[in-house]
């Protein structure tokens, strides 16, 4: 059915979650005409699981999105009710920003942000199928039968495709509790040769905060001096800051849970999808780690005003009464009332090895996949895929070169490279250990790494670029001053106090700073003139200089390693290379290579099941 309702768009984005919002926003900012189709305009930017952004490795991703000119960081900052920098006792590469967010405010900020952009239109409906012409996606057909055309389509359907919700022995169709599932897309794509699978995730019950006894729990406050995600100045929230609380399960909680375990949809095999090992349900924890006497529970506020509480660590798909009976055995929960029960959701995903590094599908041109449908989990992981899909869809339809981030440049690069080369059998979450260059990929230098790229794309503002340039310039100045500044015995009292060996000959502040025991403040306190003269620099530059000095050796080592691997990254394999003719490859290697068709030797080497031997043979065939 043709329509008078819609003109042809540049890009259609299906879905209004974290991936969909970033994709629509970035494409529109690049000046593409965008239509966002969502099943419910009221749930744009919804935090379906816990009301928090960032955390270890994820916080780095949010900073990267922000540095490139995306919005997740700004939205999170505007809705923050608690900020903490995690892992401060570790080295700088591990420092990870995390916020607790007002769930309703977060969604509202996203909606308002999207509405400020005149290039974005909205349409509330479900998409049933794609309109395809000679392996090109040229539009979508909606549930009402409307055909809408576009040069590219980004699918960001999250957990909605054939979503099934499970609570105990009950199960029903749904994309999230309270929302319908979407049907038709998986079936169409499967018939065209796409490989779809099932994944599973879960969420804990929500509780009435007025019924909790916080005196029996341990308070966890936000940082005294709260930072923010965005590199832009003062994206501060006006919301009142709140605490989280920690409590623990115990034997009697576990006993109650065990009573209902036979009704768990996981254990009796009704759920076939794979759940994440690092985000297990409480019933999973007590059975897999039966010897552990207690499990930690984080009691997290859902917003500034609301009394609703998120029980982090108690994800469950047991029957609601079993959830309730075990919850009230938790210290502080004796009188708890439940608002909503926890549940598990099973949904369709497409093995991401079917994607190019631009997130465009290999089978259909101009179709991009972003977010949870690629087998990932987490708002941050979804958002950065949306950003990259949005950028690349825009670049492609404007016949420009794709925008790819390397593993040594960003966690975003690691994530996409992992997905397209390795695929995933469980919801993929980012960890710092996935990044081989993690000392380089820090939250403090995301702007130095990426803002110029964002600026060149036309995303990051001139203001952002200027700020980064000042930061780099100041950092270099500070480092050279510290190299010249020599200390002699006057610093020994501090050295003694910090339990590090005293100096007998003059030593530069630069060299002293490399000692693990010393912080930049310790050095500055020994020379008040220096301290005063440093006041003209931004605190951010001072921290940057400190980090670069302290970790110089390791930064250099990783840069060297990155340089080494680039050789392989640049060695491309022709896309029509016939692996089946290469006899020396292992059987597994041949199959995987044939399925994935890696663009370079570098990506081939990261495919699981590919041995060093396979790579040597490929190198020989490529004449190396």
């Amino acid at each position: 059915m043709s329509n008078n309702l819609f003109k042809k768009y540049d890009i259609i984005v299906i879905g209004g979650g974290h991936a969909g919002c970033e994709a629509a926003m970035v494409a529109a900012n690049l000046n593409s005409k965008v239509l966002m189709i969502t099943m419910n305009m009221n749930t744009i930017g919804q935090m379906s699981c816990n009301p928090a952004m960032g955390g270890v490795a994820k916080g780095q991703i949010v900073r990267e999105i922000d540095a490139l000119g995306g919005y997740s960081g700004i939205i999170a900052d505007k809705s923050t009710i608690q900020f903490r920098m995690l892992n401060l006792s570790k080295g700088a590469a591990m420092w990870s920003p995390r916020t607790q967010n007002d769930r309703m405010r977060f969604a509202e900020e996203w909606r308002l942000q999207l509405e400020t952009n005149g290039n974005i239109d909205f349409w509330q409906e479900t998409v049933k199928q794609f309109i395809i012409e000679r392996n090109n996606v040229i539009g979508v057909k909606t549930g009402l039968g409307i055909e809408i055309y576009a040069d590219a389509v980004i699918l960001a359907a999250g957990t909605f495709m054939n979503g099934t919700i499970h609570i105990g022995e009950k199960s029903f169709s749904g994309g999230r509790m309270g929302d319908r599932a979407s049907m038709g897309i998986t079936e169409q794509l499967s018939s065209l040769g796409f490989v779809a699978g099932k994944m599973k995730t879960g969420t804990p019950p929500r509780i009435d905060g007025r019924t909790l006894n916080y005196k029996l729990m341990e308070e966890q406050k936000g940082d005294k001096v709260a930072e923010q995600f965005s590199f832009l100045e003062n994206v501060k929230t006006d919301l009142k800051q709140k605490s989280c609380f920690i409590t623990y399960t115990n034997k009697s909680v576990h006993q109650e849970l065990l009573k209902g375990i036979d009704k768990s949809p996981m254990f009796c095999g009704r759920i076939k999808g794979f759940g994440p090992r690092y985000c297990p349900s409480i019933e999973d924890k007590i059975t897999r780690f039966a010897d552990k006497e207690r499990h930690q529970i984080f009691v997290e506020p859902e917003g500034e005003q609301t009394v609703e509480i998120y029980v982090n660590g108690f994800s469950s798909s047991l029957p609601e009464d079993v959830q309730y009976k075990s919850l009230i055995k938790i210290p502080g929960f004796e009188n708890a009332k439940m608002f909503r029960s926890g549940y598990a959701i099973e949904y369709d995903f497409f093995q991401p090895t079917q994607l190019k590094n631009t997130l465009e599908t290999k089978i259909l041109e101009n179709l991009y996949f972003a977010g949870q449908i690629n087998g990932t989990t987490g708002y941050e992981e979804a958002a950065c895929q949306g950003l990259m899909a949005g950028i690349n869809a825009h670049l492609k339809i404007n016949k420009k070169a794709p925008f790819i981030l390397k593993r040594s440049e960003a966690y975003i690069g690691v994530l996409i490279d992992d997905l397209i080369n390795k695929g995933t059998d469980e919801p993929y979450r980012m960890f710092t250990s996935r990044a081989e260059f993690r000392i380089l990929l820090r939250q403090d230098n995301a702007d130095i790494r990426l803002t110029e790229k964002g600026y060149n794309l036309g995303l990051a503002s001139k203001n952002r670029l200027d700020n980064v340039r000042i930061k780099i310039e100041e950092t270099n100045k500070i480092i050279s001053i510290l190299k010249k500044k020599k200390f002699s015995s006057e610093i020994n009292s501090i050295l003694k106090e910090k339990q590090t060996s005293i100096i007998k000959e003059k030593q530069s502040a630069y060299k002293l700073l490399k000692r693990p025991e010393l912080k930049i403040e310790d050095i500055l306190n020994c020379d008040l003139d220096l301290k005063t003269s440093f006041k003209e620099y931004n605190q951010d530059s001072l921290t940057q200089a400190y980090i670069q000095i302290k970790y110089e050796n390791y930064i250099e080592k990783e840069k060297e390693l990155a340089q080494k691997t680039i050789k392989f990254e640049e060695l491309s394999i022709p896309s029509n290379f016939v692996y089946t003719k290469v006899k020396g490859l292992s059987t597994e290697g041949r199959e995987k290579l044939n399925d994935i068709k890696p663009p370079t030797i570098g990506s081939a080497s990261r495919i699981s099941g590919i041995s060093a031997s396979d790579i040597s043979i490929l190198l020989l065939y490529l004449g190396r």
Partner: protein
Amino acid sequence: MLPKLELNTIVALASAQGSGAISLIRLSGKDSIEIINKIFKGKDLTKQKPNTIHFGFIKEENEVIDEVLVSIFKAPNSFTKENSVEITCHGSSYIIQKIIELLIKQGARLAAPGEFTKRAFINGRFDLTQAEAIADLIASDTQISHNIAMNNLRGGISKKINEFRNQLINFASLLELELDFSEEDVEFADRNQLINIINELTKEIKTILDGFKLGNAVKKGVPVVIVGKPNVGKSTLLNVLLNEERAIVSDIPGTTRDFIEDQINIEGINFRFVDTAGIRKAKDKIEAIGIDRTFEKMKKASLILYLLDLENGNAQNINLEQITNLNIPYIIIGNKLDKANVDNIKYFNKNKDSLLISAYKNQNIDKLKKLMIKKLGINQNYESHTIISNARHYDIFIKINQSLNEVLSNLKQNITSELIVSDIRIALNYLGEITGEITTDDLLDNIFSKFCIGK
């Protein structure tokens, strides 16, 4: 696109260079059989079954070059998994050259060194370390070097490396846990325990590194130097060691054979005598060259035989420090036991690194041979150990050792875990360069299987 790897037919002499009674020329590649058929007079070889031998002649136009036996192998049942032909011809260098020339004229290409093994590797016959082991196997000319190569061929090195890899992955997982899951309720690794693990690992790696010297010695032969004053009997000892019966010793310089290098095989180990020409040639010259030159020689050796004259010398005067400082195994040998001075014998009885012999009377030579083996620290159970004899592996183990030492010093200084892991990853990368690969998934899999993680 078809893989464009050029796999045309290659040819090379498979037996040793030089003349023997017979020689073997090998062809490998798709057209091997067609190519040999064009210069072969006898049956039509293209119509013969695989694994058969055929008698006939190699001809150039109408001239017969040689009478030969041709063996036919068909893919994939050959060493290279390709069609192959082996030509057994007479061992004249003219014939060999001529046949190879004819084969090249018919479309074969002269093989590069190691190319047959490379073909076998490309065609999936074995993995990288096994390919390297084949090269060692071909080069091995003693029982022990053969055993080491065979052990590695069966995956010996890969097995050891996997053990190291698993230990390092376990270790790194404990640290990663602190990094990625610091917010979780998990117990973190005990630093002292970590230090112990790394200490154990570096000890093992040191054994492997030390073993390289042996492995290399086994592969290439152990360089031995005989030193001592003029007329102490160096030449006599050398000859008696090399071959008691064959030895010709005369007082006239230049009558001894003029070898570049002499070798003997004792219990499967090749000993190479360094600079024997110097010993054999002009005796008074040695006197003139002086002590510096002798030290240069000693530094190159893996075993020093220090010869003293029991008859005319004075054992009290010897200065052992110069030798012990070199840190190379040595044996003090008192020669001319048959004419010995009693004081000298007394001195020797006190020194446990010494042995009394008479080279001239062939006395205690067997004891000396046993002592030479013992001095090398060669473990007779070499088969149960992983011995590396490949210089590439050795270099990599050196680098791994450096990374682990870095880890150790960082652990002691209480440096934060991500930096410690960084060095472990470097070590793991190096291991991956020898065989297999490391993916970060291994770390995560290990964490998830052992710890209760996740909110």
